[in-house]
């Protein structure tokens, strides 16, 4: 760790991992509710568990992004953080607000939570992924602005690199597009249309910038490849992301009351959305192959390569599967969407945050460059268990989705939703099994932080 103030990243990462564990626990509850419908009913109905599952994901990824920025920006800018105090203050505000919101979901019915937080004054609740009470949303904005101010001032007083600039643009975009969460018109079509300006322009827009910047940073550090080369490709890749992804928003506008032309625009542009992810995979492997040094933190390199591959599979391939309008006509809102969502979020965003944690945690814990061999081996085991489990979760959901699409939508004698759910139950059982394996992988991951702490650091020779 070059700069003392980088250490503010540590609490962010710890809370991120803790919330990750919570997210997966609720994931296994949801999986079980798919097959045992009355599990935990009426105490924790499905909608509440799902809200906790998705909101925890978003919140812990935001913690991860912020932690990553607090670690990355001072190092790139070659200066101490503008205000470590502000960073810690915002950490506590965000953590308390996040925990209170989750508790609110769990302890009282959602409608009561809406009453308690006076949602009628400025209604923004009850939309997918944006279920947070308005007061929490305002809190998020305040935290985000303080955060941007903090890292922006740090950048201004120091060196400006492409990596930090791209990260800054991505994070600014994240904050700006979140503002659409406050626009909830009575008109359902408009509501849905602008809702995607948050959700799509996040995950298929500015978040890709964040992902690209973090990946580039870790690759620069672990491969020793010339910064010029990496930054050049970073620009090309994120340019492709936005070129395809901005109009690619159209693939959400096929069937929600918007004009027919979106089917053409959306299909054509989103058909090209896998390209930047493919380039990212090629890029990551290329840079590692051209490495000028062997970094002792092999776990971080594994995560970096893993995120590039899994993002391409999850976002690129599984996205392409159902993005063309004639296909999407039948698959829209089925388990195919769920399959894509799981692998894309894991591959692109979970893994990039874990890449950054894997790279920086040894230094935050006072190591020189890497954890001990023992710890790294456990971490790599967790990588494989979680990643393979996620592949199977995706495959089982895809199987369920294909059957569902056929029986409920495609065949000449369609049967009802609930009947179909019974018929594909075997896939849900298998998915739940894969989910349990994922949880085991996550436990192994957490364990890797407590194993081999007293052993000497891995050296290049050992790791190679």
């Amino acid at each position: 760790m070059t700069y003392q103030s980088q250490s503010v990243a540590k609490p962010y990462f710890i809370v991120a991992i803790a919330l990750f564990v919570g997210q997966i626990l609720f994931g296994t509850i949801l999986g079980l509710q798919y097959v045992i419908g009355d599990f935990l009913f009426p105490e924790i109905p499905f909608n509440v568990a799902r809200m906790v599952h998705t909101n925890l994901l978003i919140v812990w990824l935001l913690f991860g992004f912020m932690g990553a920025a607090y670690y990355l920006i001072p190092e790139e800018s070659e200066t101490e953080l503008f205000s470590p105090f502000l960073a810690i203050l915002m950490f506590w505000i965000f953590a308390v607000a996040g925990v209170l919101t989750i508790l609110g979901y769990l302890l009282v019915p959602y409608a009561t939570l809406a009453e308690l937080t006076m949602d009628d004054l400025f209604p923004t609740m009850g939309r997918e992924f944006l279920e947070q009470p308005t007061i929490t949303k305002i809190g998020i904005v305040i935290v985000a602005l303080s955060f941007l101010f903090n890292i922006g001032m740090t950048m201004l007083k120091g060196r400006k690199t492409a990596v930090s600039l791209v990260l800054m643009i991505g994070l600014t975009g994240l904050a700006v597009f979140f503002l659409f969460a406050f626009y909830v018109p009575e008109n359902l079509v408009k509501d849905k249309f602008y809702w995607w300006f948050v959700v799509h322009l996040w995950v298929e827009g500015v978040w890709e910038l964040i992902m690209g910047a973090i990946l580039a940073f870790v690759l620069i550090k672990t491969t020793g490849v010339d910064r010029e080369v990496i930054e050049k490709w970073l620009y090309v890749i994120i340019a492709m992301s936005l070129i395809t992804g901005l109009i690619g928003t159209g693939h959400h506008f096929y069937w929600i009351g918007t004009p027919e032309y979106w089917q053409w625009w959306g299909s054509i542009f989103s058909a090209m959305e896998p390209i930047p992810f493919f380039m990212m995979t090629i890029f990551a492997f290329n840079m590692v192959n051209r490495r000028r040094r062997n970094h002792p933190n092999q776990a971080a390199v594994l995560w970096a390569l893993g995120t590039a591959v899994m993002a391409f599979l999850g976002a690129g391939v599984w996205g392409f599967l159902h993005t063309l309008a004639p296909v999407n006509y039948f698959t829209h809102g089925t388990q195919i969407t769920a399959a894509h969502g799981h692998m894309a979020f894991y591959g692109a965003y979970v893994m990039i945050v874990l890449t950054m944690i894997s790279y920086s945690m040894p230094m935050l814990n006072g190591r020189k460059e890497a954890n001990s061999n023992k710890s790294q081996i456990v971490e790599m085991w967790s990588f494989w268990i979680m990643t393979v489990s996620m592949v199977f979760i995706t495959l089982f959901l895809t199987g369920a989705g294909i059957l569902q699409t056929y029986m409920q939508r495609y065949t000449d004698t369609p049967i009802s939703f609930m009947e179909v759910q019974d018929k594909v139950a075997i896939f849900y059982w298998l998915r739940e099994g894969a989910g349990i394996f994922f949880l085991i992988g996550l436990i192994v991951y957490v364990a890797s932080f407590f194993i081999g702490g007293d052993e000497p650091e891995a050296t290049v020779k050992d790791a190679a």
Partner: protein
Amino acid sequence: MSETFTKSMARNIFYGGSVFFFLLLLALTFDTESALPELDNRENLTEEVALGKRVWEKNNCVGCHTLLGEGAYFAPELGNVYQRFGNSTDAIKGFIMSRPKDGIPGRRSMPQFNLSDEELEGIAQFLKYTSGINTQNWPPNIQG
């Protein structure tokens, strides 16, 4: 002549390309806004429907159901539930009212939300309104 591939040109393309396609998105958004009156069934967007949408949101219905294909995939699509229930708002209200408080053993069940008469009418009218949105013939059949 040597190969030229500069970081500054890559950066310019990133900025130029992003601005270009963002403007294109805005242009298409603008056109969509002007097209919506013909598609979004706004002539039937009454006070009651607006109230129903609030009920929909306050009870987090989208946490289990899809509406026009968006939401959770745990419970049936509701964009065409009005037609599926025989073009009857009473049938919708009846279904919501009759949900058992403690669920159905071993099976998925919608919670009992204890909605007031006004709220029930609102949500039913909201779902009726939604079924009138021009969704380019989606879903493919009545099963949603």
